[in-house]
């Protein structure tokens, strides 16, 4: 069952009444890689994580973590994983050290081994100096770090990180991303969920894009970008109706596709640096003024847009 696969998911479904939160996903996450689940809110990412961490029972399908079935061998799965939930699941009236000590006990650590591991984790997350401080006095970034630290306590083979950078400042975010890379360098397999395209792009060996409970694309960053080809995407806003420039722009050299909505026109072009001056020239000829320009080079946002006709941030 293993074959170097840390997580194997087959036809996994989860329904909540009439709502189908996860609708039949198949996935393989290999040992030692960072795998990102990318998708907007409501895509089904946390539900998938919750099933993999044995918090929710699948409606249909099966998954294995380090070869252990989430349906029949949940205790072995829990011994293999560390979970970092999206919300900072901490006890605010306990200190950082007390929180880590308690959670360490829940992972089966005791005595000197527990104390040593707590010291190591405090060092890793940079909270050694504040270990005796009550958590409710911590900043958002410190709480996030402690939240991650708890997931590291059992030295997990697989670490689930559910949107760990939501709602924190850029510096803390940078710190967390660097730490995730470091955990991976130490040999940890990481399943990372996010709706930030840049994070998935920076961290991941493989990325799966989810939408409405379905896996709509999966591969490396390069493989996904190829879905939309090598074309740049240009979005132009004009001060008149699109019909006045549409024909001229369609005929412009280097333009492959044009779509319009009111005064907003989207074009797929070979090289935006070369094509943009030609578009401006055609607009002047038609007596139209361009009021806004947005250029997107091929990226995951463009892939999502291409696959769903919606922006990832929507």
């Amino acid at each position, binding site marked *: 069952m293993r074959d170097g696969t840390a997580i194997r998911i087959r036809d996994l479904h989860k329904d909540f009444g009439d709502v189908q939160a996860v609708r039949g996903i198949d996935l393989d996450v290999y040992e030692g890689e960072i795998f990102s689940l990318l998708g907007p809110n409501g895509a089904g990412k946390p539900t998938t994580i919750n099933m993999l961490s*044995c918090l929710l029972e699948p409606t249909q399908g099966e998954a294995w973590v380090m070869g252990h079935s989430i349906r029949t061998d949940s205790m072995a799965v829990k011994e293999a994983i560390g979970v970092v939930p999206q919300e900072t699941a*901490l*006890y605010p*009236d*306990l200190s950082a050290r007390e929180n880590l000590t308690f959670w360490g006990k*829940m992972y089966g650590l005791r005595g000197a081994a527990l104390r040593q591991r707590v010291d190591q984790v405090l060092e890793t997350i940079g909270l050694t100096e504040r270990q005796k401080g009550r958590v409710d006095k911590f900043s958002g970034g410190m709480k996030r770090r402690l939240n991650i630290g708890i997931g590291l306590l059992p030295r997990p083979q697989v670490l689930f990180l559910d949107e760990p950078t939501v709602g924190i400042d850029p510096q803390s975010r940078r710190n967390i991303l660097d730490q995730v890379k470091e955990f991976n360098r130490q040999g940890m397999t990481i399943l990372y969920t996010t709706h930030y395209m840049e994070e998935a792009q920076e961290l991941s060996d493989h990325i799966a894009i989810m939408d409405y409970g379905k896996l709509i694309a999966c591969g490396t960053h390069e493989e996904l970008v190829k879905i939309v080809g090598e074309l740049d995407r240009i979005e132009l806003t004009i001060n008149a109706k699109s019909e006045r420039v549409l024909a001229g722009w369609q005929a412009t050299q280097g333009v492959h596709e044009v779509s319009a909505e009111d005064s907003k026109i989207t074009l797929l072009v070979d090289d935006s640096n070369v094509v943009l001056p030609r578009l401006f020239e055609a607009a002047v000829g038609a007596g139209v003024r361009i009021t806004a320009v947005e250029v997107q080079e091929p990226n995951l946002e463009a892939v999502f847009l291409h696959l769903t006709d919606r922006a990832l941030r929507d």
Partner: protein
Amino acid sequence: MSVQIRKALDIALKDLIRSVRNRFGLLMMFLVPIILTGIPLLAFPSLRGGGGGGFDMPVTQVIVANLDPPSAQLGGSSAGAMLLQFLQDDSLASLLQVAVAADEASAREAVEERSADVAVVIPADFTAAVLEPERSAASLEARRSANVTLVRDPTLTLGPGIVKGLVSQFVDGFAGAKIAANVVAKQLGQSGATADAEILQSVVAKYVAWGTEQGESRSQGSHPALRTAPPPSKEQTANRGGQMAGAVMIGMMIFFSFFTGATTAGTIVSEDERGTLARLFTTPTAHTAILAGKLAGVFATVLVQVVVLTVLTSAIFGVHWGQPATVALAILGLVIAASSFGILLISLIETTQQLGPVMGGLLTVTGMLGGLFTTGFGGLPSFYETINLLTPQGWAARCWKLSLSGATVRDVAPTAIVLLGMGIVFFAIGAYHFRRRYV
């Protein structure tokens, strides 16, 4: 000890630590019950004992001039001597200090010089006057001329008033002897016989002897129909305050321990909302161990509260809660009932927003039905006590009242068993709901 049991105990310990770190929780667990119990004692300072606001009656200085000579009718004694002896009795020592004057003038002089508060002058024919049957106008006249005279300091009222009352009480005692003599004289007259002075004096003497004997018996506390009790000592007064504090504290302790039970059980819901409960479920800890740990935390927290309140009220208010075994039973019954009732209530709610109505409404209403706010009052109608027993709070109050009143283990055990039974039922229903939700 198995790994899962150790984890359950770790969860319980964590909850206990969190409870005692919560300032509001501490306030409601310990400070508020103590303050609410202390308020009645502040309102009635005499209950605190130790002379704090108590009334101390000054001793009245009495000087007695007994001019009544010994009489053969009273076996060589006299009514005057008996009155003097009555006033000098030990039982009156806290009220009167009695000295004897040689004559009436000396007694009056002592009052004028304020070395005495009251002078009691017993006339020379006092015995004859009180013992003479009222057979003739002469005897009536003799009685009037043989009045005891009280000379008092005009600035005093209370002490002389007490002396006057005591002397009147004594003189009234001789009225019985007179009545006995008159009844004998009448009955002899109706049967055609004549009651001579010797017979009547004999009747009076026998009555007086009987009366004296009864009086002595009474002073020794052996009268078959009457039990005399000495006034309460300061120590007893202090204990009375303690027992009143205990009665009030029963209500407060039970109300707030049920509050703590529900609050601590409420952490299951708040942990669910905070995400820590879900996180616990992702650790290699059995769901039943997690649930057992949470419920054990409720019992541990309530146990600490009740034990601390019991000890604190003994130390602060001098409450004697009863025999150690009955107190232990009462503590056990209360802890089980309060914890399991809290677990039951919280198992029925979904969010922490519903905690408020449960705390403020349900616990207050059941507390009132259980009579928790009237535990300091006595003489309540029996139907009220019956209503009290519709709630676990009422049974817990009954258990503690029994212990406080000095009942034995045998007396307290049935009530404690009822509490235990209620606790098992509440716990079973609550645990069933939680298991369905989380396990």
